[in-house]
């Protein structure tokens, strides 16, 4: 299914992993779903939860100068040994085609390929079960969960609508509200972040 390799694994633990990729390939968007094969039969699913682009002395020095030529910019982006690091938050896994919203049974290994998920994979994963995977996103502490959730919903909603499931987003939002309804500040933050999903320009079919 997913064959667009966007990076290779640098390090991992049970809850997530970090993959490295070069800037010369299109960077996956924050919140987009990725899959990492764990074996011939298993693959872990995750969300891009952070993109790190480290600086160094040279970059800092260059940044302070005026009119940096394009070739220098390209050199720093493409040649210099500062890969983009993609942090991935695991949200579940698949055993053959059976989806589980539990954490993967084991983390992937160094230099494993990380692929971006196809719309079919996104629909399969997000449409399976009862949104149990959302708890991985909502309980994350180091990153802005609301923005991650909104970014994920944007991608998943688009895929689901293409598959004819216009009601998916409402069901997903219900699950989020149910999860956070006893925590007013958290819930309002989450909903604020997701509000743009309901803007008319993001609902081209005019549905709710």
């Amino acid at each position, binding site marked *: 299914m997913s064959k667009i390799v966007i990076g290779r694994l640098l390090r991992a633990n049970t809850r997530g992993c970090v993959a490295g990729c070069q800037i010369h390939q299109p960077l996956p968007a924050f919140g987009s779903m990725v899959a990492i094969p764990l074996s011939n039969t298993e693959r872990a699913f995750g969300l891009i939860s952070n993109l790190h682009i480290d600086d160094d002395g040279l970059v800092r020095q260059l940044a302070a100068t005026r009119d940096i*030529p394009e*070739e220098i910019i390209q*050199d720093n982006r493409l040649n210099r040994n500062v890969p983009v690091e993609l942090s991935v938050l695991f949200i579940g896994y698949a055993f053959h085609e059976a989806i589980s919203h539990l954490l993967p049974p084991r983390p992937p290994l160094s230099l494993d390929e990380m692929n971006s998920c196809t719309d079919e994979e996104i629909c399969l994963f997000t449409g399976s079960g009862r949104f149990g995977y959302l708890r991985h996103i909502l309980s994350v502490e180091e990153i802005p969960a609301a923005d991650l959730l909104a970014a994920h919903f944007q991608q998943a909603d688009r895929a689901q609508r293409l598959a004819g499931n216009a009601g998916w987003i409402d069901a997903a939002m219900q699950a989020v509200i149910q999860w956070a309804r006893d925590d007013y500040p958290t819930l309002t933050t989450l909903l604020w972040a997701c509000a743009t999903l309901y803007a008319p320009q993001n609902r081209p079919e005019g549905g709710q």
Partner: protein
Amino acid sequence: MPINYLHLQPQIEKYVADAQMRQEELRDKLAAALDLYHACGEDPEEKTARIRGHLLNQSPRPRSGIPSWERVDWRKDAPAEQMACHLLASDGSQIVPSAHEEISLGLINTSRISFTPQSGMPPQIEIESRFIEGEDGRIEMGELSEDLVSLQRDLAEIRILADWRPQEGLATIALGDGPLELFHQPRREAAFERIFQAYRDAMQQTIDKGMIPAGYTDKPRAGLVIKMLTLSAESKIDLSGLEDATLFNTLLQPGQRSAIFELFSPASDAYSGNTKLYFFYLQVGNESHPWSVRVEIPAGVAHDAEKVDLLHCALLDQCQLMGNRPYPYILHRAHEEAVIHLDEKQDLIGLLTATLQREGIPIPGRSYKQSAKDLKTRTRMGR
């Protein structure tokens, strides 16, 4: 606490006092040097003859500059127009074999970076990594002197430049970090001689390919021009301790270069024809922070005013990229690509060790001395 600061405290005060005294002396010497500098310009032929005479009579041969066809006190502004060229730079790093390591390993790592300014294209980078080989063509596993390894590295640096195939119709500047002159004192050993010959061949090759080889010395400590001025004086004068950079920081406006000087040294005779070495100073700093650097070029370049202008312009352009710490960007990048970090060295040793072990070849192991040195420093609980 390995340093006894109680002992040092009075010495620091003395250090400051001595430095002040030295500054005052240098100020006086600088004034004298400036007088001589301008005097050289007024009567160049006579002065040049005097200098040459003094130099040839001295033994051992000192290191000095000699006035060239350009007036000594001549200074050239940066060319008004930026000229199209292609830039090459190389740098190298090495692993010197050590008896204290698990395995003895000699390695030269050389980088070459090339790009065309204003092309918008990212630079191309080449890395060459080679174990050092002995006379018999086998990989060297015994001990090697640091000098020899450095020489090998210098050779690799110029070779990787010489290997470049220049684009037609576009001048190629080939920059190296440090002097073009390989070493200051001639060596007698056959190994050195062979490497030295190969070095000259490679330099010749760059010139033959129409490239503009140049050695860039960022913080020159030498007093080649000062020596020359001393020799130009009619009476004996002591300008010791004064550096060329100090003189040219006073003389050169931002972007200006000095006149080209011939390089006279114990080894300079070894460079002949169009590999004969010349140098000039270049002001890459600004008015408030002058920073003069020395650029060494072979005769093949020095005699071509257009090439010198091209080099002058390209170096200023490259230094400008680095903001308030002017240094050619391309050289920095060549260094960055070539340098072997300690963890990479350890990884390489690990890879070799594992490969040897798989083949059943015994590993000598690290010396206890090295192991003791590598003991970790104190750690804090929880860190």
